[in-house]
């Protein structure tokens, strides 16, 4: 059973602010979706997990530096910029 507290906890893990009305909707939806996911409990066969499908190996190359994007191009999409840097919110309260 998913509780309202579970939904708040999940929202906090995902760093998404939610209000009381949303909590009720998500609670119902999560309940039915997670119940559906329980179908996987039927599986007893033990196999190795597949993280990705191709048999890929490490590829090595020479450590040669390449030109990066110009600073002003990279900063042009940011709202808060100072002295050629991104400006973020306070980390320490």
């Amino acid at each position: 059973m998913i509780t309202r507290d579970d939904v708040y906890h999940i929202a906090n893990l995902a760093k998404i602010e939610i209000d009381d009305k949303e909590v009720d909707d998500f609670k119902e939806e999560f309940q039915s979706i997670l119940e559906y996911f329980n179908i996987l409990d039927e599986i007893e066969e033990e196999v190795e997990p597949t993280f990705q499908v191709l048999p890929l190996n490490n590829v090595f190359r020479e450590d040669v530096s390449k030109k990066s994007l110009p600073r002003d191009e990279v900063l042009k999409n940011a709202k808060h910029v100072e002295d050629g840097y991104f400006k973020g919110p306070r980390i320490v309260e």
Partner: protein
Amino acid sequence: MEMMTVKNWRERLESEKAYDLVSELFDKIEKSKLNAYITLNKEDALKRAEEFDKGELKGKLAGIPVAVKDCITTKNLRTTCASKILHNYIPPFDAHVVERLKAEGAIIVGKTNMDEFAMGTTTETSYFGVVRNPYDLGRVAGGSSGGSGAVVGREAVLALGSDTGGSIRCPASFCGVCGLKPTYGYVSRYGLIPYANSLEQIGPMASCIEDLILLFEVIAGKDERDSTNAGKEFKFEMKDKKLKIGIIKEMGAKDEVIDKFYEVVETIKSKHEVDEIEMPSFKYALAAYYIIAMSEASSNLARYDGVRYGYALDKLDSWTKYFSKVRAEGFGKEVKRRIMLGSYALSAGYYGKYYLKALKVRTLVKNDFIKAFKNFDVLISPTMPALPFKIGELADPLTMYKMDVNTVPINLAGVPALSIPIGFVKGLPVGMQVIGNYFDENTMLNFALWLEGEIRAN
């Protein structure tokens, strides 16, 4: 109305100026009711058309109008992923596939509408509104590449889509066009804004198989900027061979769709050997798919922090408050749902129950395909289990997820699959899914080319 193809567009270019044809195309798009484009590339497209008229544009797609799904990065052309959180994002670089389009002389018409971050089956989750089905404006065009499906042959000659769990094949089926989800690793994902990296591929959409092949040849190939790129180029070889075709028993559809499907199976039997095949792991594929996709989404979409790009608040607050508020205001409901469920599936105590279990199902699905391709050359099924839905018909998220039941096993295994139009039921298009073995697009495309010819002749 005759659909635009590369062939008939080139024929028109022999007697008319590209500039006039492209202007005419934009007139049509600007009057369109489909809502298929988010951003138009008019000025640049007309400039490219002028270059073509001067003989300066060369390549396999010289002068051909191509639409690009809005989760594929285009330099200096707004790229939104149909989300409020990227509504103002102007990328400083091109995706690998866009570089290839430009190098081959294509004219990029604009960026097509989609489900927000490609999360959906109907394009109803777009921040920019639903895409309408060209055959019935009251119905959806499918998703998530709904805009690309709707414009192919109508408001662009070709289009690029992306497919995480059916997002190319579903709109191809619903809009009566062709769409290919390539083998995982065939097309570089560099510049594809990620939703679920281990599942998704960029692929071509076109109004006929010949055009699908052409666009696939352009976009497939080596790119070291995508660490999962297989480094293989694709060159189509015509082969006329009797094939062994398997009908997947677990992939069904509503009666009206399945009747059409079996009508075409009769046509297939005139040349090929057809038999049924069981894929027992598919019972678990949908749940496994959603767990993996949501888990990868929760990690991928952590980058939207309102700091480096996209939607931002005027005032910087403390980190947790700012971050949580930007995401609350910037993401739509389905995206929040998937990020949250993904966070849950990966959280302490649930990793083994959900995520790890889903990865094991993935192994079972992959093994079923490997086994099947020992006996069959291609596998077939209806692409979608139903006809295009009415707008708003699928209100409950889980009901919507279940519509992906025939398409998601392909992405779990990473094999290629395409959707080809096989006719109409009640005036609405029906698609057949054709699935191939790893890196054997050639066999499935040969089969599709033959089938298209038979369907047109009947």
